[in-house]
């Protein structure tokens, strides 16, 4: 999910993923039907004005929420 961070060419890039703890739990205790438990929401900030318009990740892997 990508959302504008104001109007200065910066964007939030949200990623829904899982913690290492949840991954270990899932790997060793599969629930039997392939469900993957997403318990972590991360975000990065991208500046699309950087690098002559090619863009640059200016903040990386910031924790938004651990569920």
């Amino acid at each position, binding site marked *: *999910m990508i*959302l*504008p*961070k*104001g*109007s*200065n060419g910066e964007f*939030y890039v*949200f990623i*829904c993923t899982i913690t290492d703890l949840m991954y270990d739990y899932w790997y060793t205790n599969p629930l039997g039907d392939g*469900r*993957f*438990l*997403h*318990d972590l*929401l991360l*975000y990065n900030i991208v500046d699309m004005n950087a690098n002559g318009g090619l863009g640059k990740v200016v903040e990386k892997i910031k924790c*938004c*929420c651990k*569920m």
Partner: protein
Amino acid sequence: MQACRHHNGRDWWLLKQGRYGTNEMYRFLVRPDTILGPFVQTLPSPAYSTFDLFGQMAFSPDGTKLAMVHCYHSELFIADFDRCSGELSNAKIVNIPYDSTTIPNPPPQETIDSIVAGVCFSPNNQFIYVSKWYNIYQYEWNEPDSSLAWYRVQHGPDTTHLKFQYYNSYTMAWMAEFILVIGEEDTNK
């Protein structure tokens, strides 16, 4: 996970289903300078027992409604959305019809057409389109009679493309004057 622009025209609401086995909805207020939240709203009954499955969530174009489907539930979750507070209200779950008659290949017909893939709104905010593996249905938001609210738009794939035997996608969207369904294996239509 889905986002809707805040009523102030600058910020955004980001909504994500909550922890597995709950009926929670997490929401975040995304501002240019910070992200506030999570604000957790417990949705009223009925609730999904398996809240972390594949599926799709969609806001209506005007941001006043939310629709959501989950892969193995033949149910459509709908609710009103307040773009000022970010809260959902008038939540309810509607059973999605399924076709058990004309699916050509195994697995069992009732199984394969019980799998829901994607959901999207019409541009006028009044209709919801739900893709299942072999059918696409339309739901009319303002029709109180559930037997009249559903209409099957498409039965079976309208292509001979072998990689598009089913609407086994996780994404559906309105593109100008047609519905876009994005499937697996780089198949699309």
